[in-house]
């Protein structure tokens, strides 16, 4: 199946300036597996989205469609074919 990722501006230097990148993977994958597939092609994204303990960074939100995965199943959220996944920096400041 194919899913697409929306990449925020600050990370596009790691995706050859593409704002949307597509990933092919087997049906039934969860978000973590989908991300891992993404990181194979775009390794610069990994350490900017996840910490070395494998958790989503505190101020990074991931949406599947319009829903924040924090309210779905986190990194175990099942990903349907054709899903649009967005990596979005959280509201923060200081």
């Amino acid at each position: 199946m194919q899913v697409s990722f929306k990449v925020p501006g600050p990370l596009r230097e790691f995706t050859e300036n593409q704002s949307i990148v597509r990933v092919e993977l087997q049906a039934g994958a969860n978000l973590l597996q989908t991300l891992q597939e993404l990181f194979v092609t775009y390794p610069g994204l990994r350490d900017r989205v996840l910490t070395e303990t494998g958790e989503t960074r505190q101020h990074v939100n991931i949406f599947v469609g319009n829903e924040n995965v924090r309210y779905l199943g986190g990194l175990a959220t099942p990903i349907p074919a054709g899903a649009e996944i967005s990596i979005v920096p959280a509201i923060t400041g200081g």
Partner: protein
Amino acid sequence: MIGQTLDHYKILAQLGEGGMGVVYRARDEVLNRDVALKLLLHSAVDKVSPDHLLREAQTASSLSHPNICTIHQVGQTGEDFYVVMELIEGRSLSDLITTTGLSMETVARYGTQIADALAHAHDRGIVHRDLKGSNVMVTPEGRVKVLDFGLATRLEREEISELTLSYTALESKLVGTLPYMAPEILRGQKGDHLSDVWSLGVLLYEAVAGKLPFRGNTGFEVTSAILREPCPPLPSTVPYGLAAVIQRCLMKERAERYQRASEVRAALETVQGAVLQTRHPSEESRGPRTLVLRGMEHLTAKNGDVLLLVGTNKGAFLLRSSRDRSKWDVAGPYFHGQGVNAMAYDGRCGKHRLWISTNNVMWGAFLRSSDDFGRIWTNPLEAGIRFPTESGAALRNIWQITLGRNDEPDKLYCGVEPAALFESKDDGESWSLVRGLYEHPHRPRWMPGNGGLILHTILPDPSNKHRMYVAVSAGGVYRTDDGGATWQARNNGVRVVFLPEKYPEFGQCVHKIALHDSRPERLFLQNHWGLYRSDNRGDSWQDIARGVPSDFGFGMIVHPHDADCVYIVPVESDEFRCTPEGHLRVYRTRNAGGSWEPLTRGLPQKGAYETVLRDALSADSLDLAGIYFGTRSGKVYGSRDEGKSWKKIVEGLPQILCVKAAVVRMDGTPTATPSLKPKNAKKHKGGRPTRVRRRKSR
């Protein structure tokens, strides 16, 4: 011409044809040797007075240098001018450059020789004016010979216009010259030694990239690119050091280029000697580099300049001054919006590398470097500093970047949050957690201070490769005597106010420790309440807080040349972390803590409620040391007379987290390390930094 004789030179064969004329192989029938004879075209000679050309060629014939083709004779026979030169067997550089470019080592080696040739000629007032690949020969032994010094004719303004308008159709001898021309020549100015530096930059670019930096289908496009386009990025395979040299040659502003060919030579020697050797095979996979362009003019630093690296909670700023430290250029913010807790300048072994830790609240903390004073920064694909998975820890921030000892130029250390020490033995290519400290049995009982649980200070003992001190807030001072395998708490005598036990083995909230290279057994310590000195490598500490308004504070440095002289900036208390009574005072001891004196001249003494954080106090290593500090309110103050008088260098920056002073070394010598000042050291006239020139945005 073949077979004819010109004076006593018998023309044997045609070797080539260039912009100025036809080159023949000829036989010198008097000295019985083969030479190259260039017969100058009438059209070339017509443009200038024959006398002038003759004079220039005669001047050029005075050059004697192993990388300059020797001119034996300049003559005139009838209407023809000719130049008799050393016959060089070999190939021109333009023939050798392939579409993939030459190896970096080859480029640096050839470039050094060309720059040396230019330096020799420039010193004698001779400018090349037409440096390009076809004018550089390489012998089978790899020796470079630059041809045609002083022989290029000057282009008139109309000729440049003609050239730019008719580039494609033109069968002009000048077509090959245009892409190497400096912007000022295209504007109709006279070419000089700086135009040669530009041409050398073009040549080096072409040699590493296999293509010219400024290209176009028409002369107009080429000219436009030279005048207006930024230099295109070099391939990622080009080491930063070499790329930085090339880019500096290709600065459109003449003042920003190397001002002498000898500087280019020195920089290329440095590249040859250091950067190429430290290049890692994995460099190509290290990810994109961040080219900082947005609205910013960068610093151009030269040998001997003083740099201030200023990290703030919203990005970094670079300040530069010449040795007199009276005027400062300010560039930045770099990585605007990101916290910069640590910066460092590495001038060891010919490097001139800036290190920076950038902490993006969204995307995490990364260590980056720049070899060209901030134009281009690394942007690693993967975080080099990362905790092993089994540790269960995740990097929050990088608080300190410390260089290894001078005789270990590839060693670097980083102190991070959560408190841990990382070490690199390959110049920052790879990092490993120092497990001896991370797995210390005390570690689970360390407590975070206000800034988190951080390892903020790293002091390698300059006299003992196996000894090092670190300071953890709040864990205390730890020392290793076996290269990091085991660590001992060294806090005996250091008081803790926030625990029931006032003198525990560990758990102290140490804010800073400092030592002087010449007295490595002696340490100074600024505690969360308390000023201390140890004369026995931290085994025990004695209170030295006599004569200070408060013994609470953060930053602490030892004078670079005086082991008894220490600077601090006391703040009132842990509750009110501001300078006491609104007086901004630096305190100095010149007797290792026996007494302290306030340094206030030039500092505000009314309503100045400032805070100087633990890494925001620094000194340069010039003879009369400069002392600098930055405040949470975004001001940088400096003293160029060791603290006697002060001047505000810049204000209005974000909250300053670190200030690091450094003296730029681009001559291949190691960075000066603090040393005892010679007794007869010249006294500087004193005075204060006076004026800031903020670089204007484009």
